[in-house]
Structure formats: structure tokens, C-alpha cells
């Protein structure tokens, strides 16, 4: 049985831990249909209103996908097969993963698991 917590004294000079995130100088690519892509331009998935958009994204192998959190609440991006897992993304923070191998990658937010999405990696059939 635990006893009630005794709160520690404030530590002097305790700094805020720096969050190191992969920051890319990456502009969203306009005019590219999100649903079906065959080129390897970097692509952005927006996180707004607790939703990944587009929820399903199809890219060619070698494409870098960047998630950007537009909410006032932190989110994460976690692959269900554990291939990738972002740090906690606070407002406007981003996470990038480059997909090399064709397949379907289901992912979710580990804080709000009702938030789900899928990246489909598919070689061009042209």
C-alpha cells in the first residue's frame, strides 16, 4: 500500500528538457492528389482536430512522409507494426519517416488511439 506522496522540493536551476525533433524545412507540396501518388516528392499528413489527413495516403517507395501537428494538444505517430514511433509532437511540431518497402502501414496516435491512419507504399505501375 502506498503512502500519500511527499512532494519533493523544487530543484534549483532545473531546465526544461530539450526535445530533439527532426525538423525539416519542408513546404507542403500543393496540387498533388493525396489519394494516389507515384512520385517520391515529400508529402505532408496534417494532424488537425484529432484527425490524420489524408487518413489513407498512397506513396511510391522512397517517399518521405511528414506529419505536422496543427492541434493545441500533443499527438504521436506510431506504426502498429512498430516500424516507426514519433516523439510527442506538440503544436506545429513534425515527424518524418521515409517509406522504402512496399506495403500497408497502419499507424495511430498513442495518446488518442481512436486516431488512426494508413500509408500505402506502392511501386509505380506506369
Amino acid at each position, binding site marked *: 500500500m*502506498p503512502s*500519500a*506522496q511527499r512532494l*519533493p522540493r523544487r*530543484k534549483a536551476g*532545473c531546465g526544461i528538457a530539450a526535445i530533439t525533433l527532426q525538423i525539416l524545412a519542408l513546404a507542403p507540396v500543393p496540387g498533388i492528389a493525396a489519394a494516389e501518388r507515384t512520385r517520391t516528392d515529400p508529402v505532408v499528413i496534417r494532424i488537425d482536430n484529432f484527425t490524420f489527413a489524408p487518413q489513407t495516403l498512397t506513396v511510391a517507395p522512397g517517399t518521405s512522409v511528414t506529419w505536422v501537428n496543427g492541434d*493545441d494538444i500533443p499527438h504521436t505517430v506510431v506504426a502498429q507494426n512498430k516500424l516507426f514511433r514519433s516523439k510527442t509532437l506538440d503544436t506545429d511540431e513534425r515527424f518524418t519517416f521515409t517509406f522504402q518497402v512496399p506495403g500497408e502501414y497502419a499507424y495511430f496516435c*498513442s495518446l488518442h*488511439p481512436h486516431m488512426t491512419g494508413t500509408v500505402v507504399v506502392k511501386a509505380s505501375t506506369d
Partner: protein
Amino acid sequence: MHHHPDSPSAPGAVSRRGALECMTWAGAGLLWSLAGGLPSAVGLGRALAAETVAAPFTFLQISDSHVGFNKPANPDALGTLREAVAQIRALPEKPAFIIHTGDISHLSKDQEFDDADQILRETGLPLFFVPGEHDLLDDGQGRAYRDRYGKGTRGAGWYSFDRQGVHFIGLVNVVDLRAGGLGNLGSAQLDWLERDVAGLASSMPIVVFAHIPLWTVYPEWGWGTQDGARVLACLKRFGSVTVLNGHIHQIIQKVEGNVAFHTARSTAFPQPAPGTAPSPGPLKVPAGELRRVLGIASVQFVRGSEPLAIIDTPLAG
């Protein structure tokens, strides 16, 4: 196991079946008092004015402080926590202890925990915690929380204790969340819970507290616990069960048989009512209206099948 120095009677020997009463206000949380007989609703204003509160035993619930949050919905979450603590200190009847139902911090940073601790300890009251999902965001996925608050707990931080003939159970339902799912307790914790209550007399009042609501409030926003039903099955035989949660930053209540469910307000920012906004994100209100939205509510808890009575009174305005 369930003995506490403050409760000399053995588990199962407790015959008192008190009713729980609570009143809530603006983020200061809930003040619960345990007394025999029917409680009457008491607003904070009256409680502050009263010479004495006719209750032999009270405790507080405080929730979702989100220390470190500084977005438009409340640029100063630390300040509103401070206000909540000031209100607690002003209570004429000192509560026995405080239960914090999680999201102490916003991003699990040391500085956030330090700031929260610094303010909460000014209550001068013992504190019991369970983590919210915002408290487990460190690289160790909860190591920071467990190092600070997890002493004497099991697993991800669950535990139980007895006070004044009441059995309190703190559960963790924010770990190991699965895609598409809700809050999650897991079989190890549920097995422990079954053993934990096995020896208790059915007449013993039970208070369960956890961050995410243990019943399904709104699954579209993840407001529920997927294996919460097993908790209720475990506690079915008890005459008085009170379930206290946070996470949704608003008061929602339900009474089902002998079980009363109650979610507390946040001390940091409000969230929209289920389904009334595109997302459960922080609800932005005009600057002068934050405390009005947080408001004051007194809640009357009547053990049994009667609905809870809520009296809302805004803090300001």
C-alpha cells in the same frame, strides 16, 4: 494489505455505509464528504461561509492540471492551478487528502512536474495520484511519473488504500493503448483488482479513481475504457461504489445500480461536450469567460439509483 494506520478496523469489519457527497468548482476539483444519512448539496460559497461542514470525513478530487499548457484556451494553466489551490486552502473544513486523477503535466517535463508539485504541496494535504496519458510522455514512457509518484504502487502505478472505512482503488488506464481502442487497464491490473477486493465485506464503500472514464462516455472521442466492464463486474457485490475520473475536462455523471460515476473538471481548460465540436480539443472561450465556463458546480451524491443532482454556479459573472 488494506490496513492503514488511520483505519483500525479490519477489512470487512466496517459496517458504516456512508453516502458520498461532493461539490465541485472551477477547476478546484471536487470536495467529497462522507457522512451517514442523506447529504445535502452545498455550494462552494456556502461551504466557505459555513462555520462547520457537517461531515466527519472529506476528501478532494482535482484533475487535469496540464501544467505547461499555454495555448489560447488558457495561456496560464499554472495560474489556474494556483487559484484552485488557494480555494482549497480557504476551505473551513480541512479535507483529509487530495486525489489527483491525472494529467498533472502537459508534456511530462521535469519542470512541469516540479511546478505542479510546488503548487500542490501548498495545500498542506496528503496527495494521491494516478497518471493521465500526458504524464507518460517522457522517453522512459512513464518512468518520470513512476519515479515521482509511483512509490509503493504496482505495475504502471495502480494501488489501493483504506481510509475511514472506505476502500480506495487507484487504477491506470492510459498505458498500452491500442489503435482504434479506448482506455485500457490490461489483464495484469484486473487480476490484481480481483485479488485486492476479494477479502472485503460487501458493505465496505468503494471509491475507484482513474484518469480516463471507466465507463463509455463517447467512444468516437475515445472517452471510455475498453475493459472497464471487468472493473464493474468485480465490484458488483458492493453496496456503494463511486467511480471518479478526469480526462474529459467537464462534469458528466451517471448512476447505475449501486455505482455512481463522476468525471471532474480540469483546472486548466474546458473541453467540448461529446459530439458538439469537430474534436475534443481545448475549448476556447473569450478571455474573461474562462472561469465562468469552468464554473462552480455543487453535486449531490445519493447512494442508490437516484440521479445525481448538480447545481452549477459560475466562478465569475
